[in-house]
């Protein structure tokens, strides 16, 4: 059966306001466009709310959370890349891989916690419009700050307009994505952008202009699937997810392997929306004391390099609507 209502990312339930879930489903649907029935030799993107879809294979499309553009622009200086990627918490402009992070430091200047998110601003804007109190409560819980008020999160002036660049989602913390192109609508557009042109393989495919990990990752994979031709869609619940984090080779100050200091705060393993990296207080040291392959953690980007983001595509055939 075609999907009748799109779920929230990782199926989170943040409000009792039922209209919100309809609004979210409408938002997803409005950003999915079916190119069905063209009769071409190419595969097509299928809106699973319009057509049944038989999955041949799931294909998580994974990419590195650390921005590739920052690395290739500083090809011979990784420290400069890490410094730059952490440098602008007010806009997080360098972090353009649909994953952003916030670094908290202790009084000694050492990193005490790094928080990664993949939640889109569209979700939070809609949640705010449906249930401002829920948003305020979530901010309070996620940032462990009961003092946050509605006024802190909205733009000045009348109308209670949500301010995604509020202090608690920029310099003072992180709740969701804010970087200019880190929008779910753009990600969904990317996933549907089946344009293989005359390319017969990936070597002949013209890469997208952006020098990111994610854009060519998704475009090349979808183009290659469409040439089979396999039709494709996105697996429910549709969203951007932190799908892996690799701390092998990371060591405590005594040289032994680190414990599992990752916490999935929102989402579930494989479909995480918010992940925190923090050493439990009883360990007697902080994140900044950990070494990755012998190098002390000085920037959040060093951790981001080992975080993997994904959308889950499904390849197969379109059935009848």
């Amino acid at each position: 059966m075609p999907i009748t209502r799109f779920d929230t990312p990782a199926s989170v339930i943040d409000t009792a306001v039922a209209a919100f879930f309809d609004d979210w489903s409408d938002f997803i649907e409005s950003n999915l466009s079916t190119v069905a029935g063209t009769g071409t030799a190419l595969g097509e993107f299928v809106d699973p709310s319009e057509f049944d879809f038989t999955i041949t294979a799931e294909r998580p499309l994974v990419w590195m959370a650390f921005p590739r553009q920052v690395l290739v622009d500083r090809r011979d200086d990784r420290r400069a890349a890490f410094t730059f990627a952490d440098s602008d918490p007010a806009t997080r402009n360098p972090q353009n891989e649909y994953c952003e992070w916030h670094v908290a430091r202790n009084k000694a200047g050492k990193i005490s916690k790094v928080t990664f998110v993949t939640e889109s601003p569209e979700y939070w804007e809609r949640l705010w419009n449906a249930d401002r109190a829920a948003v305020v409560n979530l901010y309070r819980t996620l940032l462990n700050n009961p003092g946050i008020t509605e006024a802190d999160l909205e733009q000045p002036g009348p109308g209670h307009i949500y301010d995604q660049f509020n202090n608690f989602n920029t310099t003072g913390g992180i709740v969701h994505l804010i970087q200019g192109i880190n929008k779910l609508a753009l990600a969904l557009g990317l996933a549907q952008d089946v344009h293989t042109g005359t390319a017969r393989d990936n070597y002949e495919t013209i890469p997208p202009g952006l020098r990111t990990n994610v854009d060519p990752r998704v475009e090349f994979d979808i183009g290659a699937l469409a040439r089979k031709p396999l039709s494709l869609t996105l697996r429910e619940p549709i969203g951007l997810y932190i799908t892996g984090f690799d701390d092998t080779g990371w060591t405590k100050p005594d040289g032994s392997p680190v414990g599992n200091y990752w916490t999935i705060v929102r989402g579930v393993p494989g479909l995480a929306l918010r992940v925190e990296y923090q050493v439990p207080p009883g360990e007697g040291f902080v994140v900044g004391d950990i070494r990755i392959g012998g190098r002390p953690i000085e920037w959040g980007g060093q951790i981001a390099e080992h975080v993997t983001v994904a959308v889950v595509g499904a390849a197969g055939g379109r059935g009848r609507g």
Partner: protein
Amino acid sequence: MKNKKSDMLEPLEIAIDSPALNAKFNNVLEVLEKFEPKLPSGIFTPALGGDPAEELPDAPPEPVYNPKQRGNIQGNTIPGFNKDHQHFLFYRIRKVDRAKRWLKWIAPLITSMEEVIAFVRALRSARRRLGVEPPMCSAWVNIAFSQHAIEVLAGRDDAAAFGEESFRQGLAARSTYLGDPTRNSHPGHRNKWVVGGPKNEADIVVIIAADDPGDLVNLVNMIKRRADDATLRLIFEQRGDTLPGRLRGHEHFGFKDGVSQPGVRGKVSAAPGDYITPRYIDHADPRARYFAKPGQLLIWPGQILLGEPRQHTEHLFNPAPGGSNFPAWAALGSYLVCRRLRQDVPAFWKFAIGAAAIVGMPAEKFASMLVGRWPSGAPIMRTPLADNFALAGDEWANNHFIFDDNTLPSMLRPIPGYGGDPFPQAAQDILGAVCPHFAHIRKSNPRDIATDLGKPHDSMLRMILRRGIPFGPPIVGVKKPSTKLIKQERGLMFLCYASTIEDQFELLTRRWANSPIQPNFGGHDPIIGQRDERGARTRFIDFPTAAGPRRIRLKNEWVIPTGGGYFFAPPIHAIAGVLGA
């Protein structure tokens, strides 16, 4: 949505110590020798370069290496020694002044790119004239230094000027980052390494290579005598030999090794077509711009040699400026990674036999799906059902395949005596049903597929030049090997050259081989992948079956690190002129 996947089955675990497996294991070993590539006959491979027709109009100009530069580049870096017999000497410096004198002595012995290319050309010319393999022999020497050695020989400032942080740290410090064991008790823990552990890191590695074993021994003995005189402490030495007879070019599990290497751009002279890497693709084929021969991608020399034009980060065939994060004297040098890897051949084949029986296929096929090639070297992408020795021996066909789309036949320039690639081309395998996502050759060389780092263009930034050779006596091809023989140590001296360690060797190892989800979901590289999660070393593969992927846990290990080091192979002038000065 309807889901056809059936990955809900319990993961398989294979016990490899059953008597039944032992009996089958001997049979497999014996049979493996029969998987021999069949070399095509009557083909006269032209001497390297020199054919004006190889020049591609409008292509970006490639650097021309003049005699001085060719004489400065160490020959094992480019084009590679590829000798059947090699010996590795690992030294620690005790007295700096004596070490410097020894460096001045050995510098004239160091074999350059110039000499290796001249030898290869002479060999090919003689082969062409005689019609048989000419009895030409040579013995060659190369050398490389650790960061510590550069510090004591050239000074702290010069050592610190190497921007490659992994090199400055050394292999021991990066060991667990590469997935090596964290538990002290594990035989692969760095504290147990024969060389390169925290307490036995080598300052200098000398690579001696020869066609004739006697030549090799003589040269090794001479170098050792002079090193003794210079008070260099020999930490470890390792003899390496290609496997004998029909297994020449195979590694100890029985598989042909080193089939796929990138082709380095650049010219030996300004003469038209005088390329370091010969070009075989017809200009009418658009792939002539980025392949030297079918399946051999061309990379700019700066991916290997410091300071030279590098691969563009966004482009298949355009160059980018070379790096400058190293002392000026280090230009044309290359980083050398050495890993001494012990191979447990019985553990590998018993696992393959046991798992193959459960998934219902012959052990050879199952093992070949782990590698991505049949024992002969024939790619399973081109011959999924059975090995094909003629394909394996055809150098214009045995590496010609991509994964995500149907591979199109290559248009080749005329090759005297070669009738063309007659084998069925590889069909697309985007879902990894033929060559699984975990297969060693798909993990370490994703070719055309997109990865966690984006487009396949990026994968060209990760390529390395491998220069490995087996060590220890083989048991593949041996009929009923004795227990004593089985217990003898064997493995691979893995060596590779690159202009970065972190973005090339380490990335391939940690990011792809060791990860079950990168560059694509499907499991760990079951051949070289290492994984250590707080002491747990179990890996897995999601094996493709008709009913969907079946997860198989790999509880045993068959590749165990036992030593190595991160080194820098300097330009030859710097050996006496900087490090020995």
